[in-house]
């Protein structure tokens, strides 16, 4: 086998320029694919991380019908304490759950005593919310503190703070309607300003859960949603399945499901962008396959055509058709291997450079995001193996043609 590879390598070196150009083409393809995967998957991971770790969590549970009306923040679709208890019991049974946080979501009037605007708020338990949304505290552009949000304090989204000209330490008033329609107001002090991020909830304010219930004059400990953080993104399906089996079967008085369970993808439009990125990655991979297939096949067809007499000679000497096939397949394999190895080395070097330098970009209203691309070894191995396999497949037809040649015709070829 080594001998066949050695002969194949020499045959490739016989046509140095052609081999070099083909290898270069494969290398460019590999570099393009790996760089695209590195940048796009890092962007995807960064955005998914931002969405799940600072806003949505991995899974959310609501009372049936809440999500379809979520823009109205319907207080009458909050979960009563009994339902929350059921969810709590179910979550305690699931190993994949790392933390969960109850939230009361509400809309309110935000006043700085001279101007008034609307604000969407999350009433949260600061300790539990910090465990579900560990990156929420990273969104502080000013203010903050040891406790995510203290009682009587408010975290104001950046855009509202700018528009209303409020800063950390300023007093503000929140006025909200409870579910019966009566109005209540409470004074708050601005504890911090939050950077706005893309996606639902990315421009919401935060107050303490107890303050939210007081503002809404809730008699019971109702909850609008329960956000769940799992031990990893890859546990979503398992945890969702277990939740469906435990609370998903519970019915309300009308005999319909009492709860709805949504993974983050169903709650954020970014999941569509993520799907588009996956689709584009697939197309880029298809392009790589085409480049390798066409270039290697072209070279191998030429190689067979130019070496017909040589094929006749080795066939006359008694070289089996299988060995002749192996010779040409080995050439295709080496072309693929060479292109893949050089491409991988070059790609990893470029990814390292980009990672060191960072790529600054804007996404929606988020300015100056710094992307540090990285690539999984699995993706690198997959691309390299794909290139080699396609190169072998591309050489099969020319190799087959060579092995089927009649030695006499081949020897007579001019």
């Amino acid at each position, binding site marked *: 086998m080594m*001998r066949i590879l050695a002969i194949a390598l020499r045959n490739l*070196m*016989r046509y140095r320029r052609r081999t070099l150009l083909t290898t270069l083409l494969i290398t460019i393809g590999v570099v393009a694919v790996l760089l695209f995967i590195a940048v796009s998957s890092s962007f995807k991971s960064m955005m998914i991380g931002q969405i799940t770790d600072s806003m949505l969590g991995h899974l959310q549970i609501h009372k049936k019908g809440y999500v379809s009306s979520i823009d109205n923040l319907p207080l009458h679709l909050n979960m009563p304490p009994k339902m929350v208890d059921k969810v709590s019991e179910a979550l305690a049974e699931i190993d994949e759950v790392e933390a969960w946080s109850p939230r009361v979501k509400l809309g309110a009037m935000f006043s700085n005593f001279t101007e008034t605007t609307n604000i969407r708020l999350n009433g949260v338990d600061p300790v539990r919310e910090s465990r579900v949304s560990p990156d929420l505290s990273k969104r502080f552009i000013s203010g903050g503190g040891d406790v995510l949000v203290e009682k009587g304090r408010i975290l104001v989204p950046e855009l509202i703070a700018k528009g209303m000209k409020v800063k950390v330490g300023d007093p503000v008033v929140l006025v909200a309607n409870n579910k019966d329609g009566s109005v209540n107001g409470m004074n708050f002090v601005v504890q911090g300003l939050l950077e706005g991020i893309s996606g639902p909830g990315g421009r919401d304010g935060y107050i303490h859960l107890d303050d939210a219930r007081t503002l809404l004059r809730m008699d019971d400990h109702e909850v609008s949603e329960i956000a769940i953080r799992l031990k990893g993104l890859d546990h979503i399906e398992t945890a969702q399945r277990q939740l469906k089996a435990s609370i998903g079967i519970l019915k309300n008085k009308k005999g319909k499901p009492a709860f709805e369970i949504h993974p983050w993808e169903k709650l954020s439009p970014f999941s569509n962008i993520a799907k588009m990125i996956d689709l584009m990655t697939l197309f880029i991979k298809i392009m790589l396959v085409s480049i390798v297939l066409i270039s290697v096949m072209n070279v191998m067809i030429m190689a067979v055509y130019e070496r017909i007499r*040589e094929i006749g000679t080795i066939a*006359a*000497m*008694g070289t089996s058709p299988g060995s002749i096939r192996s010779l040409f397949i080995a050439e295709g394999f080496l072309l693929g291997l060479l292109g893949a190895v050089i491409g991988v080395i070059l790609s990893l070097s470029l990814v390292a450079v980009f990672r060191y330098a960072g790529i600054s970009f804007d996404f929606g209203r988020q300015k100056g995001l710094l992307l540090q691309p990285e690539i999984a070894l699995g993706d690198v191995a997959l691309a390299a193996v794909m290139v080699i396999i396609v190169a072998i497949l591309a050489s099969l037809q020319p190799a087959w043609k060579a092995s089927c040649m009649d*030695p*006499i015709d081949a020897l007579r070829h001019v």
Partner: protein
Amino acid sequence: MKLIFAKNLEKTYSTGEIDVTAITSADFSIDSSSFVSFVGPSGSGKSTLLNMIGCLDRPSGGKLRVLDTDVTTLDRKRGAAFRAKHIGFIFQDFNLIPVLTVFENIEYPLIMVQKWSAEKRRKRVNEMLEAVDMTDQAYKLPSELSGGQKQRVAIARALATHAKLILADEPTANLDHATAYRIINLMKQMRDEFGSTFIFSTHDPKIMEAAEIIYTLEDGVVNLTKGENP
């Protein structure tokens, strides 16, 4: 011992609606360790005859036994295996593999065809290099050799596998007369040293004189013109 036995051997090619007869009812036999030449003008059927003996082509009729094997029944794969085991080829254009050195060209059939061990191969190639007086050129590429040197390498390659039968189609056609004569003498010397049977085709009258047995071909008819039909 009869190495080759042919009876009523025929070869006809179909070119569209016309059948062209290349060999007509040929009867001949060749003993082992013979030094035989098929002579005749271009198109007389010399190469066709060599191709049939070498299992590269199949007769249209008649009997042909080579080394006690009915080669008319061999399919492509078995034909290749038979050639690999018993037959060596020497070509008019030398047909050395351009990317391999002299050493590697001689070694090629021992690796690709007969799968010898490395040590056995090295010993045999050195033996063949010495036999054809090419030891000092062992690591040159074919492009660095003269025509005569290339043919020496081709002879060494044909004999390396201990082939019992060496078929040489116009082996001297691309050589000057002096070199051609030396090559024919080398082939004869190899026959004496290794006991292989050499059959070559030529239309050069001076070269054919070196043959011990001559079969003349004219319009597909084979006649013994020198030596005895065993």
